């Protein structure tokens, strides 16, 4: 019975668990329950990925109504791969959040926190798995509402304005997506994504379809914080509770990147988006500007969470850059970076949260001398930081390697060089934190405070992600296998509308991939 419903369970499980967590009420109960559920969702998504890799597409008709009349859940290698990262990070963050939340959130709100976390997980899983454009909007709003709640749970009053700004921008983004889906529906009469893909072909040059495409792209860009629509992200990540930032930074924006990939490659088709609309160049320019502008912004901040938040916007630039190359290799680089960046930012924000737990501040000055006082936490920060920079033997290196290879494959030297120069900024902003931690002395005023390492409940999840950073930097078979079959699959579904010019491009890329 389990295999039959494998596609639906990762959504249904946290969805049902959320009200139960609210009923449980007590901190420890709801924490244990939420962690258990998230762990089960992780196991299910693991099975789902292996099923998707062996069987190809898994389609599930909710309510027994065949698509396009009913709602279809549609799992392939691409979304199963992202789902695996989301559920894994969610589980580890939940383990970690027990103590972190005790410090940062009022006791009365603990059960609400875990309920909101489960709702957010259910929403994100739903966005990934659903094959229906309107159903995607519904799950987007579930995850968004839960996210606004999570951000506003911190004790610092600035989280309120950050959450409000996030709410206004997020709702504008969702409404844009709603307008876009409406325009597509008006022209095609269907909401199912595969059905849309077939029917949009018939109207290649329709102004209504193009406007729908533009609105969906802008709406999704707000959700994924693509420069210059990223203004909500730095304050939200800075002022949210640490556990929330660790969860959102490594999942929410990645899911939005996947939504963009899905709309471009499955629904509209590469041909339509990149050749007719010329979106490739727009995305590439925005991505490059994001990498440079936000990496620079990261180097001049004094709050470490803000540094990492700007770094996130820059890293999203790398993901968009990969898909704007319009090749199997480029898309594969994006998919790998989605997974690896979740690992890096998860570890970094957990380490910063541990510092906040002990020191009570995440200003860069507060890191002075922590290399000795909190050796394990800072070692975790260092390794994850090296991964962001892209040092060999870390996951970050693998991402950059595939991105640079993909750019060179098209003879695009400029992009390859820009990626490498962008990494130099990461050396500066990670370096500043490490310099404070290892080369500055603990200020005299702090000597009396008893600053020590955090407990194993926070260290274990942090180090699991850190070790994953190293593991996926050395043994890349899982990430590359999943990402390459995901991107090849996405290109295959696109084949039916490929014109000759693009076909040459892709087949060249394939030839080079084989020869290399």
């Amino acid at each position, binding site marked *: *019975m389990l295999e039959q*419903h494998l596609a*639906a369970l990762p959504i*249904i499980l946290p*969805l*049902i668990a*959320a*009200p*139960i967590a*609210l*009923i449980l009420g007590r901190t420890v109960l709801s924490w244990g329950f939420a962690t258990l559920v998230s762990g089960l969702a992780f196991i299910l998504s693991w099975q789902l990925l292996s099923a998707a890799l062996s069987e190809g597409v898994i389609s*599930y*008709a*909710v*309510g*027994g*109504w065949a698509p*396009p*009349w*009913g*709602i279809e859940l549609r799992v392939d290698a691409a979304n199963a791969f992202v789902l695996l990262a989301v559920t894994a990070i969610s589980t580890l963050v939940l383990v970690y959040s027990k103590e972190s939340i005790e410090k940062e959130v009022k006791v*009365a*709100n603990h059960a*609400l*926190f875990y*309920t*909101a976390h489960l*709702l957010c997980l*259910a929403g994100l899983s*739903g966005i990934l798995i659903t094959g229906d454009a*309107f*159903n995607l909007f*519904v*799950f987007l*709003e*579930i995850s968004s*509402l*839960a996210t*606004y*709640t999570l951000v*506003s*749970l911190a004790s610092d009053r600035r989280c309120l304005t950050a959450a409000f700004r996030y709410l206004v921008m997020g709702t504008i983004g969702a409404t844009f997506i709603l*307008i876009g889906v409406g*325009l597509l*529906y*008006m*022209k*095609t*009469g*269907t909401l199912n994504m595969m059905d849309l893909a077939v*029917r949009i072909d018939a109207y290649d040059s*329709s*102004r*209504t*379809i*193009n*406007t*729908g495409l*533009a*609105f969906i792209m802008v709406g999704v860009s707000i959700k994924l914080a693509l420069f210059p629509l990223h203004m909500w992200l730095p304050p939200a990540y800075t002022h949210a509770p640490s556990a929330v930032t660790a969860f959102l930074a490594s999942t929410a924006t990645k899911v939005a990147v996947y939504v963009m990939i899905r709309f471009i490659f499955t629904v509209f088709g590469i041909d339509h988006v990149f050749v007719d609309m010329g979106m490739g160049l727009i995305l590439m320019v925005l991505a490059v500007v994001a990498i440079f502008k936000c990496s620079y912004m990261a180097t001049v901040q004094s709050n470490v969470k803000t540094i990492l938040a700007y770094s996130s916007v820059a890293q999203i630039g790398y993901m968009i850059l990969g898909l704007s190359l319009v090749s199997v290799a480029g898309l594969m680089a994006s998919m790998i970076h989605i997974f690896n960046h979740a690992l890096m930012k998860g570890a970094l924000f957990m380490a910063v949260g541990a510092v906040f737990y002990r020191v009570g501040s995440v200003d860069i000055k507060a890191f002075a001398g922590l290399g000795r006082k909190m050796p394990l936490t800072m070692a975790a920060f260092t390794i994850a930081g090296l991964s962001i920079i892209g040092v060999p033997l870390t996951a970050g290196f693998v991402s950059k390697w595939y991105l640079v290879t993909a750019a060179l494959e098209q003879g695009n030297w400029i992009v390859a060089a820009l990626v490498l120069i962008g990494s130099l900024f990461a050396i500066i902003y990670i370096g500043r934190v490490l310099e404070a931690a290892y080369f500055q002395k603990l200020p005299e005023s702090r000597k009396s405070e008893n600053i020590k390492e955090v407990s194993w409940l926070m260290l274990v999840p942090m180090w699991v992600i850190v070790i994953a950073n190293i593991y996926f930097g050395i043994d890349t078979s899982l990430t590359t296998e999943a990402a390459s079959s995901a991107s090849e699959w996405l290109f295959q579904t696109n084949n039916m509308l490929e014109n000759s010019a693009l076909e040459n491009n892709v087949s060249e890329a394939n030839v080079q991939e084989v020869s290399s």
Partner: protein
Amino acid sequence: MAEFIDLVLLAMLALTALRIIFLKDLFAVVMLFGIYSFLSALIFVNLDAVDVAFTEASVGAGISTVLMLVTLAMTGRKEKQSTHSTLLPLFVVLVTGAALIYGTLDMPPFGHPDNPVHQHVAPRYIEESPKEVGLPNMVTSVLASYRGFDTLGETVVVFSALIGVLSLLGVRRKKKKDLESGLETHSVLHVVSKIIIPLVILFALYVQFHGDFGPGGGFQAGVIAAAAFILYALVLGLPKAFAVVGPKFLQWMASFGVLLYASVGLYSMYKGGHFLDYNKLAADPIAGQHYGIIIIELGVGITVFAVMLNIFYAFGSQAERSNVQ
């Protein structure tokens, strides 16, 4: 004729929207928003969307406006002059609007029966749903059965809103008995409200169970029932309303509604169907559809009622506290 009514209503909407842009008195802004909401409900009726009109009137003009007014009571009713330039917003809006107008130029003409919207998916709902699902109201069939997963999502969205509001505002039971609450001196209001409230609840039950045949359903019923209790709380004060249904009980109710809905899905999985496949609920598929829809509509109604009332409690208790200070 319908087109003429449509045009008049749209013109009134445009005037209302323009007025809202320039008004600085927020109380008037919220009132105009209520009018905007009612006018759009009229447009929905005119365009044959009776269920939507019902919901818009009870939610947009009802719950949303009430919540906005309570918020204004705490934040003040005057908007201050902005120091920002209005050029950038104007530019953004003009570009977006131009893009949309450009998009309308290839649209299928308004109201034509052979538009793509009416060709592909919809005919099955119109022709088959009375046979497959067995209900005369096609909107209820599509909402609860064909797209039942969306509606589960919608119920969870409402539940998420409760989580958000509770974590931000909380509902506090008041300790001091002597605090002024409600409108205790207005005996006419007391009598009238005591006559009206049972009727409103009766109407809510009618809407809940008649949704299969006419406009209505769990969502509208939940909002109407919540409105009855909100009226009670407004007239007699929050403490008396808490004595009837307490906030903690409402939390459980909200959770229970979602779980009731989801359990229908789980049971159909247990019976060998897909999630929310009501055909499997009984030997006869039509009977199964009927049971499924009644239960999930009940789940929606319970959750919406509990959430709306609890959200009002949260806002109300904040407003009372700020009045005391």
